[in-house]
């Protein structure tokens, strides 16, 4: 990895006895798109606010471009930020809003005008300069906020749930636009969201926050395919959990209730553990063996849900644990299911992760 642009070194923020964020370690490479993902109150926004300078860390250090950031006040940090609900100045026109950071940096009037025009063009809002923020739609306001945060070419751009106020369709559209801007400008982005789908679509890497800590950092694929904690497996995508104790721990593998899987984390023999298996990796066999599946279990069909391109079956195992299996329409045709009928299931050991049960 090249020299990181942003380095969070064991930072934390404590309010009295409560840790809003703790032991946060993260290196962000230049040009990277990193997402902080987690439920509300998980510490992702606190961490972002520490980077921006609105919150002072009670522990650790932040370095930007190799220099310590701690003694630098907010207004000298040169970090762009898109706020939740945008925080556009209501008494200034769109152009004045975008021009504001340039003005603060003593850019001459003529250069300001030109750069503001460029920035507005970049977000597709040329000609909107004279309007007031409240005369724009939500998506347009979002773009103005983006232009204002990027117009002074900050090395780092922070985005705090920037799409939270938009409806689903506009959201998806803006996700793509932000990704394109990121690619074209080469800006490094830290993006905060609680929407896992958004995180998977946009990010180079995702840091999953929970209870003030980072549970796991990795590429979207890593997090989905190889979660290291039960929380990550549960928070990203849908997962079936089969609880028990870690058995037959050896090297990369172990067993839970006799079912084999890959070890997602270090576990001692006999420790409480879960086996996590994604619904699309769990196959309903009922006589049609699936090649390569080396684990099998059985139960009763509780519910069959028709989803058009796929079918979801909810199956109760013998101990009452409900698991769901997702199958493509073509496959599903081979195994007709009836509610109340017995069902046989199978999966590959390499698709299952064995994690600590906390």
């Amino acid at each position, binding site marked *: 990895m090249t020299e990181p642009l942003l380095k969070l070194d064991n930072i934390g923020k404590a309010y009295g006895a409560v840790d809003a964020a703790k032991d946060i370690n993260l290196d962000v490479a230049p040009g990277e798109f990193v997402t902080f993902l987690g439920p509300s109150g998980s510490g992702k926004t606190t961490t972002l606010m520490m980077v*921006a*300078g*609105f919150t002072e860390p009670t522990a650790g250090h932040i370095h930007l471009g190799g220099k310590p950031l701690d003694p630098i*006040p*907010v*207004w*000298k*940090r*040169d*970090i*762009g*930020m898109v*706020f*939740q*609900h945008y*925080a*556009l*100045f*209501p*008494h200034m026109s769109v152009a004045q809003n975008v021009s*504001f*950071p340039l003005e*603060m*940096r003593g850019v001459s009037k003529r250069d300001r005008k030109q750069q503001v025009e460029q920035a507005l063009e970049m977000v597709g809002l040329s000609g909107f300069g004279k309007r*007031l923020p*409240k005369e724009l739609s939500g998506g347009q306001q979002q773009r103005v906020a983006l232009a*204002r*945060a990027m117009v*002074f070419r900050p090395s780092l751009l922070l985005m705090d749930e920037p799409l939270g106020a938009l409806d689903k369709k506009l959201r998806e559209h803006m996700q793509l636009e932000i990704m394109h801007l990121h690619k074209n400008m080469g800006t490094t982005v830290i993006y905060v969201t609680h929407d896992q789908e958004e995180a998977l679509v946009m990010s180079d890497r995702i840091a999953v926050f929970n209870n003030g800590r980072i549970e796991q950092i990795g590429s979207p694929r890593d997090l989905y395919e190889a979660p290291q904690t039960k929380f990550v497996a549960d928070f990203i995508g849908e997962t079936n959990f089969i609880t028990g104790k870690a058995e037959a721990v050896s090297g990369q593998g172990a067993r839970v209730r006799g079912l084999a899987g890959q070890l997602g984390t270090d576990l001692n023999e006999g420790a409480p553990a879960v086996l996590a298996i994604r619904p699309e990796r769990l196959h309903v066999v009922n006589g049609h063996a699936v090649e390569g599946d080396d684990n099998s279990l059985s139960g009763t069909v509780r519910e069959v849900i028709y989803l058009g391109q796929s079918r979801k079956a909810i199956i109760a195992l013998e101990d009452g644990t409900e698991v769901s299996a997702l199958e493509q329409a073509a496959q599903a045709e081979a195994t007709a299911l009836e509610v109340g009928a017995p069902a046989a299931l199978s999966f590959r050991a390499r698709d299952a992760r064995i994690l600590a049960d906390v």
Partner: protein
Amino acid sequence: MFYSAKFWGGLRGVINALLVVYMLAPLVIVLVISFSSALFLTFPPPGLSLQWYDKMFSNPTWSRSLITTLKIMVPAAAIATILGTAAALALSRMQSKWALFIRGVLMAPLIIPVIITAAAIFGVFRIWGLYGNLQGLILAHVILTLPYVLSTVSANLVMFDKRLEDAAANCGAPPWTTFRRITLPLISPSVLSGMLFAMVISFDELVVSLFLSTPRVRPVTVQMWSNIKGDTDPTIAAIATVLFLFSLIALLADGVARRKSGRAAGL
């Protein structure tokens, strides 16, 4: 009859009309009498003239007292506006129990009966040599008007989005610039409104001024008071009209400021 909509509508009309007469008639009558050509407070006046306004401005007692009122009002309102706005800003950022206590203390002059404030201030200001001069009156008026500024500006700050200040800082604006460019323009309608409030309260103030003024330094309300207790001629009606018009103009100015802010700031 009880069930007829006409009856209830008519009753409402009567109530509304009586209310308007009760609230406005006295003021209207004073206004009309101030233009009277008669020498006494008769209504309706036999003819119209501006003689009482002429008398008011040419009589040194009245003109001096009007000037004294302005000399008290302008600095008092200015000081109250600055201190009250500053306090409102600080209190809006404080979350401790102290903030609530401090707010209560600053609002106290508005809440407790003004006669108590007047007596207390008079007792102490007399000892401090702040009796019978402008300084004492200005200070007392600042005390009385500051709560109005504080409450008006605070009400606006409740709706003020503090992330705008964060956004300005993030854009590179140091605190003072943020205040000047973002916070102040956005709360300025309420600051103006608070200042107008302070001016009206100071202009109309009687009780505290009654204690602190002497015949040499005497605001117009006190002068009016002592004349009402003596003999009354329509000059007092003219003074009363001036006082009333001042309030009315301030009220209208406030309305205009509010409407404008509603359009521009959209808070």
